Structure formats: structure tokens, C-alpha cells
């Protein structure tokens, strides 16, 4: 039997990183190491601001932020150790990953997320992706976007959906309600960054919708979790709509608070137009809170085409919020179990393993 292959992972961030992509990389590499499909993984991150613990079979080199320094360090890592598989965690790094793959006679896996593939990338990035042995996409929409500009065999482009962490479970959210002094109100929640360059997450739409509902006498509170410079604009928007005391910006919160905030909400709503997948939908539903999004892009996958959450058109958002708030909150345990069955750790690990088998069998 051949020894298990070794992997070099080029990532923006993974262990010790913040945000969705870092989380995905941790989930992916962790699942891979756990299955034993690879014998070792060397992770090369560009940043790692937080403390971290590494799983077995994984080592992570010190972060190198600068692009040139990073490239040299990655090449050096590749030259001095065996590399059978190169995992490229972001399209921007694909040319470097393709070069290393070439030099080492290795196989290339490119991970795609969302917004970075909506439009045709540079010539180099496209050529590098087309040279990949496997392209992984978090959603059907991401896959479709990749295939719209890449001339690559569609069989090499697989969907491995995001997964939801174990920490998100149903439970009591009353402490959070008390802390925010919003007992008795109907609580809407969005968890997303507020980046002024993106502005696709849909906070604006929710604020517009609640100003209408409040006018009609609904006792609503809209809780917004996440950080970003666009917050100032959104605060002004809430003021102009006359609902500033009903919109609560909490900024960035710790994991434990986040879990409780998800639990206390009556409805998670994120009418985002350009979601690669939208892992926050899963976190909400795993915490027992129903989720509402737009039936566009990756959100359709996270909401499982309406099987787990609710996906509607932009025009239907206000009435759907009203309808879902009017209904009693569904059984949190059942919703959480359904989400876990479809997007839980085990399903994710099986998906990662099946995808990797494509490459490993072929070697």
C-alpha cells in the first residue's frame, strides 16, 4: 500500500484566523487530517492574529502577510519537503499554488467561496484554476459561477457545502434578552460583517421592512451582530427611518454570547444578494432559530431550497418577516437536528473524504 499523501495548504488564514474563510479552512483541514486520508498537512497562512491549538497531523508555519515574503516562504516550504497535494484556500493564491504544483509534480485543489469568483478573474488566476485537478465550491451557485468563466471539465468541480460548528445548539436565550432589556419583543437578528465596499448582506432591506412593521404596531427589535465601517451609515439609516431605538448594533461578540443571541432571536434574517453560502443561516438554525434569506446565490443552499429555512424574493421579504413573526417559533430541537443531519460535522467529513478520494484513488 502506498503511504498516505502529504499536503501543503496555502491559505489566507486558518488556525488563529478570524472570519468565515478561516473557519472553513479549519473545518476542511481538520476533517481531512482526522480521516487520515493525508499523512500530514503543512499550513502556510498569511495571517494568524489569535491563539490557536492545532489538531493532530497538522502543522502551521508562522504567518507572512507580505505577498512577496509569503511567496518565497511558500516556495521554500515546498522545496524542502515532499508535497503530493497542494490545497489552495483562495483564488488569489491559485497562480502560486499552480506553480508549486508544477514544480513538485503534485495535484492541485483550489477552494472557492463566493464573491471572488462572481466575475471572471485575471488571466493568471483563471489559468491556474483551469489547471486544478479538483475545484471545491461551497455552493451550487459558486460552482456555476466558476464554470461560467473556466474551461475545465465540470466533473472536476465539486460542491462541498459549509458546515456548522458543534457549539451552536438550541437552548435558553433569556439571559441575553434580559441583558439587552428586550423581553417580550419579537427579535429579528442578522449576523454579518458590515463592509462599506460590499453592502450586499441586506441590513438596509431589514431596516426598511421593520420601519413599516413598527408603523403597523408590531413590537419589534432588530439585533445586528458584526463589525465594519458601514455601521455608521446603517445607524443613520435607522435614524432616518425613525427606528433607531429598535435597531441594536452589538458589534463583534464572543462565541458564547453569539450562541445565546442566536437562541434568543425569533427570526434570523439576512437578505443577502451575493452570499457564497451563508454559514450564519446554519448557525441560526442549529441554535433552533428559523432563518430567512433571498432565493439567490449561495443562500439557497444554506436554506436547502426552503427545506430548512425560508428563501423568498426581495419583494417578498417584508411580508415574509411579518408572516414568520406571526407564527409561533417552531420546535428548536427538530430544526437543529435537521440542520445537523444535512450540514453537520459528519456529513461534511464524508463530503471532504469523497472529494479527496477522487484525487487519491487516481494517484
Amino acid at each position, binding site marked *: 500500500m502506498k503511504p498516505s499523501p502529504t499536503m501543503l495548504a496555502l491559505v489566507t488564514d486558518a488556525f488563529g484566523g478570524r472570519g468565515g474563510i478561516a473557519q472553513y479552512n479549519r473545518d476542511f483541514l481538520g476533517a481531512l487530517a482526522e480521516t487520515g486520508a493525508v499523512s500530514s498537512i503543512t499550513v502556510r497562512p498569511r495571517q494568524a492574529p489569535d491563539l490557536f491549538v492545532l489538531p493532530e497531523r497538522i502543522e502551521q508555519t508562522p504567518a507572512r502577510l507580505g505577498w512577496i515574503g509569503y511567496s518565497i516562504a511558500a516556495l521554500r516550504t515546498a522545496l524542502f519537503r515532499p508535497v503530493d497535494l497542494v490545497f489552495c484556500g483562495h483564488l488569489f493564491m491559485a497562480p502560486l499554488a499552480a506553480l508549486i504544483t508544477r514544480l513538485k509534480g503534485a495535484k492541485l485543489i483550489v477552494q472557492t467561496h463566493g464573491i471572488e469568483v462572481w466575475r471572471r478573474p485575471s488571466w493568471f488566476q483563471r489559468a491556474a484554476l483551469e489547471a486544478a485537478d479538483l475545484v471545491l*465550491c461551497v455552493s451550487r451557485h459558486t460552482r456555476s459561477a466558476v464554470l461560467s468563466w473556466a474551461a475545465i471539465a465540470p*466533473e472536476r*468541480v465539486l460542491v462541498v457545502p459549509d458546515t456548522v460548528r458543534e457549539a451552536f445548539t438550541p437552548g435558553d436565550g433569556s439571559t441575553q434578552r434580559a441583558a439587552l432589556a428586550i423581553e417580550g419583543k419579537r427579535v429579528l437578528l442578522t449576523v454579518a460583517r458590515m463592509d462599506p465596499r460590499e453592502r450586499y448582506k441586506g441590513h438596509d432591506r431589514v431596516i426598511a421592512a421593520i420601519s413599516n412593521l413598527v408603523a403597523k404596531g408590531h413590537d419589534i427589535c432588530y439585533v445586528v451582530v458584526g463589525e465594519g465601517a458601514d455601521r455608521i451609515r446603517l445607524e443613520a439609516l435607522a435614524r432616518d427611518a425613525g427606528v433607531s431605538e429598535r435597531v441594536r448594533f452589538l458589534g463583534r461578540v464572543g462565541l458564547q454570547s453569539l450562541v445565546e443571541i442566536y437562541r434568543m432571536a425569533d427570526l434570523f434574517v439576512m437578505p443577502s444578494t451575493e452570499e457564497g453560502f451563508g454559514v450564519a443561516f446554519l448557525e441560526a438554525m442549529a441554535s433552533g432559530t428559523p432563518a430567512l434569506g433571498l432565493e439567490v446565490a449561495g443562500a439557497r443552499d444554506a436554506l436547502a431550497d426552503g427545506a430548512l429555512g425560508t428563501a423568498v424574493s426581495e419583494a417578498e421579504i417584508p411580508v415574509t418577516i411579518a408572516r414568520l413573526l406571526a407564527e409561533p417559533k417552531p420546535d428548536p430541537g427538530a430544526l437543529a437536528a435537521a440542520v445537523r443531519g444535512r450540514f453537520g460535522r459528519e456529513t461534511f467529513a464524508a463530503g471532504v473524504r469523497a*472529494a479527496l*478520494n477522487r484525487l487519491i484513488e487516481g494517484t
Partner: protein
Amino acid sequence: MTSGDGRFVVVFNGEIYNYPQLRTELETDGAGFCTTSDTEALLHLYAHYGADMVHRLRGMFAFAIWDQARRGLFLARDPYGIKPLYTANDGWTFRFASQVKALLAGGHISRDPEPAGIVGFHLFGSVPEPFTLYRDIRALPAGHTQWVDAAGPREPEPFSNIAEVLAKGAANPVPAAEIPERVRAGVLDSVRAHLLADVEVGIFLSAGVDSGALLGCIRDAGQREIRAITLAFEEFRGSSEDEAPLAACVCERYGAHHIVRRLSKQEFFEDLPTIMEAMDQPSIDGVNTWFVSKAAKEAGLKVAISGLGGDELLGGYPSFLDLPRWRRWFGPLAAVPGLGLFARKLIGGVAPSFSRTRPKALGVLEHSSNWAGTYLLRRGLFLPNELPEVMDAEIAREGLRRLKPLRRLAASLMPDPSSDVARVCVLESAHYMRNQLLRDADWAGMAHSLEIRVPLVDFTLLRALAPAIPALTPGAGKAALAKAPTVPLPDEIVTRAKTGFGVPTSAWMDAAARDGSGSTGRAAEAKGLVSRRWSQAVLNGAVLTKRQLEVHAS
């Protein structure tokens, strides 16, 4: 159909002609049959041989077998691609069907365009596999199998290759004197196999050599009652262009019952919307097959033999002469880097009207340095450099990048069949016949619940003739075919067939296309330009029909 133990489930479109032998073999090995259907043989074969089963099949087929134990789906399509098989995969769900339309009708599949399919249609007049007009729908290529499991479909794997068969044949050539006997034995064997049926098998009969010889062989195979359908045109009645009298003469010779179906211009125009509706992927041809199938249906036939494939197999097309000639005459010049491009730009600038009316003449210097390019030139509806003028320039550029037409044509010639005749045979069989003629025969036949069988498109026959093909001189193949029946075809058929028959349908098509586009008529134009206009009408017509469908559906 499900296997006895419930492990395998099969869906099958096609005919397995060696079913009786397969059944005997399988039963000797202990398999128990519950039905008399060739479908059941597929289940036993798969259980026995796995994916290698495809090598044992003679026939036209597209099938899928679900393996409950391995939780996977096995798909296969016959070596020539007689039967179609389309798949769609969105990353979550894998779907398959015999028609693109069926996949679209199910909903859930994106209609985003595939530039390679659109460009391919403009280059060849039909959509080249594996592409379709839609990005999310692909054809499983002819002679390929595919495995689909929880992680999705794997890349299709080839199990047969026309070029390889011909290359092997070229390694063991037969003397020219033996060719007629090879052709006779091979064709008779294939016809015999293709007559396996529990319903009456009829034949499409033109005044050409292919169908006439097949009729004679059907007779030799022992079928007494034969009904032959000839499509003739009202406009040609009594003229030398009328095929009916000669076909009647062939029928008389072989004692077949002759049915002549006359087509008028009026009926053509009446049926045109239905034809466009029945067409699966756009095609610039298939109209004649539509009407002859309609006639067969009217006669109550469910199965008909067609002479399709004779020109590809036995060197019947002018391309068998043209391609080697163009390569000889222009190849050396075309090999000079940049000369072709320079000449095109120069003449395009100095005499623009010349490049408009004779677009291909200019391509000779650009494309004839290799076989793929020369073939593209010969068969091409438009040439790559003309595409930006007839379609969105961005789609043209992206489509060419994805389709890689020259590389694709060249790849079909691997391994090199090592003779000019065999090379043209491969190019015509693996492209024009596969993507155009066989597709047309499928939708036009299916629209009339008619199964069209093609004994001259048969891998067993190809293997038998492969050693003879390199030695075929112009006309020799058809002459040998004419002598295949014990009672040979009348000489006048062989002589007359050389000059060919006109069909008024191309003029009608042009009239219809002009009507649709509203363009004003210009006097006598090259035939190629007529096809170009028709292709645009078909593409627009297809789009129109789809819109109508959407309206109905909503």
C-alpha cells in the same frame, strides 16, 4: 427493470442486436432470464463483467444502471453515438435524459448559455458533443462510460475509438482484390443483425447505392415481405431529378413493396413549426429524415433501416477527394507562418466583396496545413475568424476558447489511422455523422415513434472493413457495396448515384429563412451561404419555440 436480487436497476434506450448470443452465453454461465427483453441482458452483463460489459454489446444504446450495493450509477453510450444521452449536474443533483429538452422540462436546470455549444453550431451546423447550448447540460460522449457516486459524476471514460480501430486495421491490410468480398460479408452480417425484431422492419429507400444495397441484403438475409419508403418531391415528378422511378426499379429487382411519398412545398411549410418544435438541439439538417419518417409512420412501420453511414464508411463523400487534395495543394503554403492571415487581411482590404461571397476560399491558406483545419474548412458553416460578425464577439471568443475546435478535431485522429481515406473516414464519422446525421435521425425518428436502424454504422462492421479502408480508391467502396447483394444493384443506380440528386428542400429552407429574417433576396448564391442563413433561422426559431414553451408552462 430491476435485477432478480434487487441490486441493479436499469433504464435503457436502444437495441442490442447480439442479444440472442449474449443470452445463450449468460445462461451457460448460470444466469436466469425472466423476460425475453434485451434490457434484462444488460443487467446480467453488468453483474457479470462490470463496466467491461460494454465491449460485449453490438447495437445502439444509451443506458444507466443503478448499483444499490455500491450506491452509484453507471452510464454508457454506444461507440458511434447513435443513441443520445445528456446529463446535468448542479453540484447537488445529477440528472440524465435522452433529450436536452427533457432535462429542461423538469425545471431546476439553469438555461445559462454554453458559448462552446453556440460557437460549435455556427462552425459545424450542429452542436458538437459534449456541449449543448446550455452550460449545465452535457452529452456523454459516444463510446464513453461514466460513473456517478455521492461526490458526483466522474469524468467520462472512453471505451472505443474509431481512429484506433482504423489504425489497427491499417496494420493488417488486405489486398484490393479481397475488398468486395469483405464488404459483402461484413454488410450482410450487419444487416442480418439489424433485422432482429418482433415487429416488421422496413427500409428508407433512395435511388442511391447505400439503401439499395441494404435492401438487397435484407432480401439475402431471408426477409420475404419488405416495405420500402421513398421520399419524392412533387416538383420533380417526371424530371430526371426524381428518385422515385429508379427506386421503383430497385424495389422490383428485390421484390419489395414500394411506397412513394410525395412531398409538396405546401406540406413542408405546414410542418416547419412542428419540425422546429421536435428538434432537440438546433441542426441545419434533418428535414428530409423528418418527412421520410413521417411517411414510415403513415405506413404503420415502427422500425426502419436507413443507409446512413455508407458515405462515411466507404468513401462516398466528395470530402474523400477534396481533403487530401487541399492538403497537397495548399498545405505547404499554409505551413508558412502568418501567410494565411496576411492573405486574408490583404484580400479582405483590397476586395471585400470577394471575402464576403467566397469566405472559405480565403481560409484555405490558413487552415490546410493540417487535417483538422482542412476538415473545418470543408465542413465549416462559418470559419472561426468570421464568428465575431455573426454573433456576440465575446461569446465567439469565449466559445472558441472552450470548444478548441482544431484541437478537438485533431484529438479524434489519435492514434493516426495512417491513410488519407481512413483519416477522412474518422473525421466524417466522429464529427459530421455523430453530431449531425445521427442526432437528426434520432429526433426526427422519435418524433414519429419510429426506430431508425443503421447497419452501416456498426462497430463490428467497422472492424471487419478497417483493413480494407486504406486501400479504397475513389468509387471502389460504393462499387463493392453495390455488389454486396447476391443480385447486384442495377448499373444505372451506381452511375446515376455519382452525379447525385437535388432536393428542393434546401431552396424551401432558404425561402423560410428569408421569410423569418425579413431579409431581401439576393440572386443565386453559393450553397454554403444558404446554409448559413438557414442556420441563423434555426437558432432564432429554436429560441422562439423555447419562449413559447415557457409561456405555456407559466
